[in-house]
């Protein structure tokens, strides 16, 4: 068992698609919450293989897409400082701020380093005691145990030149926000498997029940995704709405207890602004009182930031599934992957970028 190839078997995948097709008696709208799932869906072309009766809406589960503009601008300001080494996951380097992105700051002389893990940033801090090392602590629940451990270790070691710009976001409040929207179209969720590996899925039962919305904990390989979709469609067809776990090999109901304990120690819940969506109450984590000294946002007062989101960008509605990317007036005109106005046109799993590529193909093929 390698836990990868087995879950990519094309024959089984195509049969699952047939089964989904046979099962669906009408059109259903499903949202995969997680950007990693979106990536896998597009990479494997699952969106093109699914029957018309299943519409997948790409959700807000990508830190590139939802990290608020003022945080990006703050990161840019901190990264520009001469005394700072700014460490980040590669994802964030191309995300547009109000005026520029981290790549451009790097081009202007900023010391910006791509790391694989927040503990790599800790090592940079140990190796450069005369510099301030700032890690861009973004991500969902999955990334929180790693970021929490970095802060915990920094405190244990007394690593005073390390700090973190934290912009953690949480899935369940975002699901509620989507379902609360008066124009919501989403009828079932594929919950993000790795978020649930950490947090478990206890929190989702209340949502499924309150909103009558099926929620299926789903993995990332083609067979995982298709099993999740099939389970969600089965619930919808049967008029049921509960929480199912279609990613049992990696997810327990209670999640990862030691990881949750560390998160509870290092972080505390806060309201969080989601880019394009707005503020969602209790939808994020910031450093708790005990670790506040490691908060880069307070260590480096960057003054008032005047954020300017493109007035043409409708990313928020797209993220919530109320607008299709090609329904946006700027789509393919002012806004393309080479000239992105919003984050959704940036990463390859961004809903707008994905639509753009496929639209280009169908147009070229038709002409």
């Amino acid at each position, binding site marked *: 068992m390698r836990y*990868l190839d087995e879950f*990519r078997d*094309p024959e089984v*995948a*195509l049969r699952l698609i047939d089964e989904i097709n046979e099962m669906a008696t009408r059109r259903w709208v499903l949202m995969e919450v997680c*950007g*990693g799932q979106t*990536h896998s869906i*597009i*990479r*494997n*072309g*699952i969106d*093109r*293989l699914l029957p018309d009766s299943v519409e997948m809406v790409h959700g807000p589960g*990508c*830190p*590139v897409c939802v990290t608020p503009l003022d945080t990006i601008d703050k990161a840019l300001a901190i990264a520009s400082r001469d005394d700072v080494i700014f*460490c980040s*996951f*590669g*994802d964030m*380097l*191309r995300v547009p701020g109000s005026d520029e992105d981290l*790549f451009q700051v790097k081009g202007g002389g900023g010391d910006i*380093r*791509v*790391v*694989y893990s927040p503990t*790599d*940033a800790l*090592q*940079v801090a140990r190796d450069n005691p005369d510099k301030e090392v700032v890690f861009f602590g973004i*991500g969902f629940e999955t*990334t929180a145990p790693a970021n929490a451990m970095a802060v915990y270790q920094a405190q244990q070691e007394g690593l005073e030149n390390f700090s973190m710009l934290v912009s953690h976001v949480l899935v369940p409040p975002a699901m509620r926000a989507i379902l609360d929207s008066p124009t919501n179209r989403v009828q079932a969720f594929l919950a993000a498997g790795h978020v649930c590996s950490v947090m478990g899925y206890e929190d989702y039962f209340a949502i499924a029940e309150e909103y009558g919305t099926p929620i299926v904990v789903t993995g990332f390989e*083609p067979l995982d995704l298709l099993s999740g979709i099939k389970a969600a469609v089965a619930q919808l067809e049967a008029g049921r709405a509960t929480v199912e776990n279609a990613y049992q090999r990696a997810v327990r109901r209670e999640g990862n207890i030691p990881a949750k304990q560390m998160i509870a120690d290092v972080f505390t819940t806060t309201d969080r602004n989601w880019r394009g969506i707005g503020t969602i109450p209790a939808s994020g984590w910031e450093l708790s009182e005990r670790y506040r000294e490691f908060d880069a946002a307070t260590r480096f007062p960057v003054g008032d930031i005047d954020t300017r989101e493109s007035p043409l960008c409708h990313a928020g509605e797209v993220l919530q599934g109320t607008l299709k990317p090609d329904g946006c007036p700027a789509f393919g005109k002012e806004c393309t*992957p*080479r000239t992105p106005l919003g984050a959704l046109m940036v*990463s390859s*799993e961004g809903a707008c970028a994905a639509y753009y*590529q*496929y639209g*280009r*193909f169908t147009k*070229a*093929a038709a002409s």
Partner: protein
Amino acid sequence: MTIDGWTCPMPLRDQPNVVLGHGGGGKLGNELIRHLFLPAFDDVHLQDLADAATLEVPAGRVAMSTDSFVVRPLFFPGGDIGELAVNGTVNDVAMRGAAPRYLSVAFILEEGLPLATLARIVASMAEAAKRAGVGLVTGDTKVVDKGHGDGVYINTTGIGVIPDGIDIGPARVRPGDVAIVSGTIADHGMAIMSVREGLGFESDIVSDTAALNGLVSELLNAGIDVHALRDPTRGGVASTLNEIASASDTGIVVDERTVPVRRPVASACEMLGMDPMYVANEGKLIAFVPADQAEAALATMRAHPLGEGAALIAEVVDDHRGMVVGTTPLGATRVIDTQVGEQLPRIC
């Protein structure tokens, strides 16, 4: 040549690192040329140390290409910047069907670079040139202040002779052609990743850097009507296919299931969230040939040590012109666009 076998000791040996004087026209620069470059490169055209090399070129057309090499770290699993600088330009010349003959080499050295390091790089270039059958016939050295370079930058320019009757270029690609890659992809890029600060991992992944002129001449000698050749370096196979689709105004359909990727390379790509189709290669080529010559081309390539893993990966079609479309492992389609900028490891 290694630093141990380096014959002339004085006064270079008293000077362990590159200093600004090595780039001037004076004694130090002269020492570097006479005692480090000349013995290594050992080419008759260099011996008179004139301002320019004089070369004998047969009648007909020549192909000429230039490339600058910047890589960190300078030494990586399976190669180093010197080998890369020779092979890279040899390959660019060979991709026009030319037989590479001569290379120029220009070094930009950073003050403080250990001369032993330079000697290793130079020795590696000499070996690579010998393997590729090209002469390093003229060169230049400049030194920049400490902190203004990554140790060494190298520029090489190459000249090769195009045999009569050979016309290879993207414009000749047409619907009905197929694309054959000479072996596994993404090895070089992931070998570099494996030793990048902050990203590294342990593996037996090595760069595929190699001079491909031998493989190219095998193809031509076998009488294959090669329409186009490309070495998919930066931007990987995806970018190369896009360039060809756009230059030839055709569409390309690549079957991702047939693209050869070594298992550890595939695993490294999974871990860092990268797509092997966009990762650099330094010793692979993609040949566009008419479909009815595909078998012959494959057989010829597979008979050569640098083409053992050759595989047919794509077809050229008269549809979705200028675009590359991939057939995914599930048999669906996806657009394979040119990369916008450099591919970075991601968590999302």
